[in-house]
């Protein structure tokens, strides 16, 4: 009976947009389990949706049958999320939101992620792909999320 960390959920899905809704419901419930407010829980859900959408569009260029690993840590002080893909890597510095004044279709995903989460960090050191870590702290001052 191997010990398993009570606060960790692992999930692997294919890079198919049909699974986004299902992942959203998992994230929403994790956030609610941690007693984040409904508003913040919905925001976190949006951030994860945007991260997955970007993996599908940019790392896997729309391929539907690539692997995405999602690890959720329900910790005392924070909700931590890791999203791993095994696709195309880019220099994290090029992953930027568009200027809000320059209205055009696209360019809002990264903006929402950074607005909502306290930490958004891309790691391309793995030979196989990109790992995105996003953190939302429990005692949020409200500054980052409003």
């Amino acid at each position, binding site marked *: 009976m191997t010990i398993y960390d009570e606060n960790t959920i692992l999930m692997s899905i294919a890079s198919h947009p049909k699974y*986004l809704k299902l992942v959203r419901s998992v994230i929403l419930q994790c956030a609610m389990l941690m007693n984040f407010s409904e508003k913040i829980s919905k925001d976190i859900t949006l951030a994860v949706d*945007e991260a997955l959408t970007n993996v599908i*569009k940019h790392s896997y260029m729309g391929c539907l049958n690539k692997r995405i690993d999602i690890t959720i840590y329900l910790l005392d002080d924070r909700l931590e999320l890791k999203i791993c893909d095994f696709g195309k890597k880019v220099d994290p510095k090029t992953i930027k939101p568009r200027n*809000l004044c320059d209205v055009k*279709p696209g360019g*809002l995903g990264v903006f929402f992620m950074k607005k909502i989460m306290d930490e958004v960090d891309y790691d391309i050191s793995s030979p196989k792909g990109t790992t995105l870590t996003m953190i939302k702290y429990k005692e949020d001052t409200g500054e980052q999320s409003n």
Partner: protein
Amino acid sequence: MHIQIKEQGDIVIFQIEGEIDLYNSPGLRQQLTSRINKGSKKILVDFSNVKYIDSSGLATLIEGLQKMNRQKGRMMLCCLNQSIMDIFEVARLDDVFNIYNTAEEALDDMAK
């Protein structure tokens, strides 16, 4: 997501139900584009039954709006719930779109 399209005079009303994300925004985009290409000059997107929208849904709406502007048409939105309104506000799209509280207000204004 499910889209029901109604016509009221020269106004085309998109009643969307469900969640707008990368899975179904291409369907919305296709239906919007088809109506715009047919020459519709007034489109109202009714959000009464929209529970969720992400950036791919927003991109689809911005694309529709820009196409409508180019052909001197008008695209309006109505009945956004609070959490969707929050998303529009954060992305500063509440000034970009004409947003009405009720379908009646939007229709009245479009009929002018």
